[in-house]
C-alpha cells in the first residue's frame, strides 16, 4: 500500500516496550487514515466506558495518506482518544509540520499506552525510538520545552508537547506542536498529561512512496490552480487569515457577545481581521506544503509569535465584551504557552463572568482578579491560573459546563455535550446549529462547516434563516469533512476543492479507485462509527441538542432579531436523512450498508 508507510509505533509507557507493527490493509481501505482509521483502531482496543485518565486508556497520533506527500496542505495529524471533557470520541486535528515529519520517520501513527512512572518524553529519530526522562521539563511552558528538546535532540526535529495545563489535567488542555499549532479541543492535552508524557519529538528523513507519481503531479496542478483561483483560498485567507470573519459574522448579527447574551458586538471593528492586518501583522505563515498560508505572525510586545484565529478573537473578544486586540493577542500567547484550548477557555471565562454578573460568584473567590464583562486586564492572568490550576483558575480549568453546574446553572453553559461552542450564534444560522447539535465531539464548528453555504456563499448561498434542505447539506458537509480529516488535508482546502478532487488525490497516493460518491460513503462510515462510539461510551441520544438560551430566547437586536434555533424541525429531518431512528440511533440496515454492523 503506497501513500502509507504501512508501519506504526506502539509504545507502552508502563512497561517501556516499543514495538513496530504493520497497518491493517482492510482498516486503511475502509477508514482511510487520520480521524477514521484512528477511531477504528481506538475502538477495537479500548473499552468505551474507560475513565479517560486511566493508564489503560490509549491515545493515538494518526496521519493520513496525503500527510507529507505532494498534496496541497497535506499537513495534518489527528489525536484520537476519549475526551475527558465531553466523554465523546475526541479527534483533535493539527497542522504545522509534526504530522508530515512522523511519516518521514517511517510511521503512519503512534499508539500510546500505559502511564510513565516519571515525566517522560519520546524521541523518534527514524528507526531509533527512545523513551527519555522529562523531569527537567515538567512544569515548563511550551516554547521553552520546544527549544530545550530541539537542543537535546536535533535542531531540525519537530516537537509536539503539552504545557502546564495538560500536566495539571485541565479538561480544556490542548496539545501544541511547533509552539503555536494546536490539537486544541476536547481536552486531549490532559490525557497526555495523565500518562506523564510531556512531549513527542520526531525527526524523519525518509520519503513517502506514492502509487502513481505522475498522476499525483497532475492532480496537484489542477488542485493548485483551483486554490489560487478561488477568492477565499487564493486571496482572502492569505491576506487576512480567519479573523476576516469578525466583521461578516457581526454584520449578520450572529457574533455572540457576553456569553451569548447578545448576538452582535458594537466594537467588532477594533478586533477585526482588517485591524489585525493593519496594526499587528508581520507576515502570513504556512503549514507543511500549504499554498494558502492563513497563519499570522504578529508583534507581541517586543517579540513576535503566532497570531489569534477568528475563534480566539471571538472567545477573548466579544464573548467577554472586550475590544482590546493587543490584550487578546497576549492572552492567545499565554494559552499557547500553557497549552490551553482558546475557544473553551474564553467561553468558560464568559460563563464565569455571567455568573459573577448574577452575583453567584463572589469577589472573595477571585484572589483580587476581575471577572467582569469588558475588563481585559485580568484575562491573561486567568489563563495562567487555569494552566497552573491556581485558586479560582482550578474551577475554570474544568471547562464551562462543570463550572456553571457547580453554581447550579448548567443551562448557562454555552456547550454541546460539554464542549464549548465557537463563534457563530446558531439562532442566526440554522444549519450550523444543527451541526453543533449533532457533531460527534460536541460543540464544534469544523465537523460540518455550514457557515460556508449559509454565510460565505460557498459553494452557493443558502438562506441562513431557513430550515428546508439544511439536514441534507449538513449531512453531506459532515461526511465530506470526515473524509478530508481522514485523508490528512487541511479543511480549508475545501473552499476550493470538492469530493472528486479529494478522491483523485487518494487514488494517486494509494491506488484506490474512489470517486466522489464512494469517498462520501467512506466519510459517512466514519461519521456513523464515531456515533456508535459515543453511544457505547454512554453519551445519551438526547444530548444532540443546544443550550436552552439558543432554543428559547429570541435574539433581541441586530440583523438576526427575533430568531431562535429551530432544532425541533431540523433534528428529525437530519436523523431520517442519516438513516437513523427517531432517537438518533443508527439503524441496523444503515450499519450493514456501511459495513460496520
Amino acid at each position, binding site marked *: 500500500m503506497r501513500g502509507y508507510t504501512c508501519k506504526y509505533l506502539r509504545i507502552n509507557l508502563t512497561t517501556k516496550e516499543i514495538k513496530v507493527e504493520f497497518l491493517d490493509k482492510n482498516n486503511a481501505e475502509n477508514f482511510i487514515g487520520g480521524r477514521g482509521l484512528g477511531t477504528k483502531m481506538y475502538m477495537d482496543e479500548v473499552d468505551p466506558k474507560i475513565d479517560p485518565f486511566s493508564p489503560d486508556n490509549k491515545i493515538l497520533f494518526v496521519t493520513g495518506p496525503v500527510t507529507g506527500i505532494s498534496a496541497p496542505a497535506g499537513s495534518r495529524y489527528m489525536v484520537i482518544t476519549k475526551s475527558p471533557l465531553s466523554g465523546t470520541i475526541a479527534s483533535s486535528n493539527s497542522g504545522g509540520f509534526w504530522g508530515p515529519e512522523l511519516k518521514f520517520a517511517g510511521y503512519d501513527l503512534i499508539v500510546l499506552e500505559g502511564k510513565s512512572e516519571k515525566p517522560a518524553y519520546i524521541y523518534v529519530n527514524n528507526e531509533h525510538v527512545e523513551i527519555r526522562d522529562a523531569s527537567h521539563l515538567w512544569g515548563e511552558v511550551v516554547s521553552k520545552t520546544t527549544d530545550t528538546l530541539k537542543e537535546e535532540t536535533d535542531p531540525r526535529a519537530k516537537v509536539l508537547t503539552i504545557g502546564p495545563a495538560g500536566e495539571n489535567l485541565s479538561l480544556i488542555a490542548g496539545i501544541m506542536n511547533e509552539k503555536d499549532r494546536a490539537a486544541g479541543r476536547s481536552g486531549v492535552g490532559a490525557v497526555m498529561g495523565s500518562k506523564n508524557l510531556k512531549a513527542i519529538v520526531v525527526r524523519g528523513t525518509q520519503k513517502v512512496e506514492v502509487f502513481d507519481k505522475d498522476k499525483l503531479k497532475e492532480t496537484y496542478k489542477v488542485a493548485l490552480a483551483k486554490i489560487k483561483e478561488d477568492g477565499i483560498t487564493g486571496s482572502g485567507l492569505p491576506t487576512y487569515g480567519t479573523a476576516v470573519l469578525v466583521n461578516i459574522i457581526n454584520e449578520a448579527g450572529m457574533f455572540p457577545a457576553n456569553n451569548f447574551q447578545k448576538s452582535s458586538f458594537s466594537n467588532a471593528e477594533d478586533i477585526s481581521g482588517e485591524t489585525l492586518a493593519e496594526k499587528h501583522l508581520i507576515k502570513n505563515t504556512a503549514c507543511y506544503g500549504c499554498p494558502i498560508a492563513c497563519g499570522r505572525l504578529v508583534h507581541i510586545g517586543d517579540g513576535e509569535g503566532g497570531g489569534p484565529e477568528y475563534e480566539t478573537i471571538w472567545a477573548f473578544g466579544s464573548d467577554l465584551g472586550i475590544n482590546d486586540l493587543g490584550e487578546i493577542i497576549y492572552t492567545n500567547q499565554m494559552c499557547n504557552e500553557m497549552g490551553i484550548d482558546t475557544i473553551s477557555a474564553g467561553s468558560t471565562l464568559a460563563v464565569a463572568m455571567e455568573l459573577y454578573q448574577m452575583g453567584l460568584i463572589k469577589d472573595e473567590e477571585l484572589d483580587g482578579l476581575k471577572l467582569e464583562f469588558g475588563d481585559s486586564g485580568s484575562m491573561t492572568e486567568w489563563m495562567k491560573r487555569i494552566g497552573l490550576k491556581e485558586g479560582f483558575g482550578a474551577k475554570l480549568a474544568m471547562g464551562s459546563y462543570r463550572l456553571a453546574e457547580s453554581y447550579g446553572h448548567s443551562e448557562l453553559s454555552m456547550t454541546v455535550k460539554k464542549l464549548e461552542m465557537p463563534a457563530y450564534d446558531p439562532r442566526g444560522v440554522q444549519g450550523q446549529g444543527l451541526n453543533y447539535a449533532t457533531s460527534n465531539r460536541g460543540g464544534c464548528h469544523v465537523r460540518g462547516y455550514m457557515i460556508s453555504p449559509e454565510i460565505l456563499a460557498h459553494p452557493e448561498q443558502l438562506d441562513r434563516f431557513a430550515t428546508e434542505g439544511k439536514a441534507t447539506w449538513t449531512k453531506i458537509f459532515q461526511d465530506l469533512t470526515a473524509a478530508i480529516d481522514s485523508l490528512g488535508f487541511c479543511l480549508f482546502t475545501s473552499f476550493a476543492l470538492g469530493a472528486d478532487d479529494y478522491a483523485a488525490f487518494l487514488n494517486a497516493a494509494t491506488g484506490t479507485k474512489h470517486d466522489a460518491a464512494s469517498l462520501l460513503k467512506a466519510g459517512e462510515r466514519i461519521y456513523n462509527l464515531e456515533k456508535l462510539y459515543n453511544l457505547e461510551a454512554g453519551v445519551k441520544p438526547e444530548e444532540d441538542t443546544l443550550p436552552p438560551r439558543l432554543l428559547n430566547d429570541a435574539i433581541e437586536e*441586530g440583523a438576526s432579531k427575533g430568531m431562535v434555533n429551530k432544532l425541533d424541525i431540523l433534528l428529525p429531518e437530519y436523523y431520517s436523512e442519516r438513516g437513523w431512528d427517531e432517537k438518533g440511533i443508527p439503524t441496523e440496515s444503515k450499519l450493514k450498508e456501511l459495513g460496520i454492523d
Partner: protein
Amino acid sequence: MVIEVRLFATFRINRFKIKKIEIPEGSICKELLYIVGIDHNDVSILMINGIHSNVLDKLKDKDIVSLFPPVGGG
C-alpha cells in the same frame, strides 16, 4: 435617499470603511456599486441591513449595505 455603505477586507483599499452616499429614490444595489466603483462580479457577499441580498434588489432610505469580496475562515 441616503444609504450607508460599509466596505470590508480588500474593498477598503483606496476607498473607505464607511460612507453615507446619496442616491436617487428607487435605485438598486447595482447602481450603488457603480457609484462606489466596485464591479458587481467582484462582490461575494452583499448584505442589506445584515441580510444577504442580491445586486438587483431595491434600496430604501437609510439602508445599510455591507460589501465583502470572497473571504472565509473557520
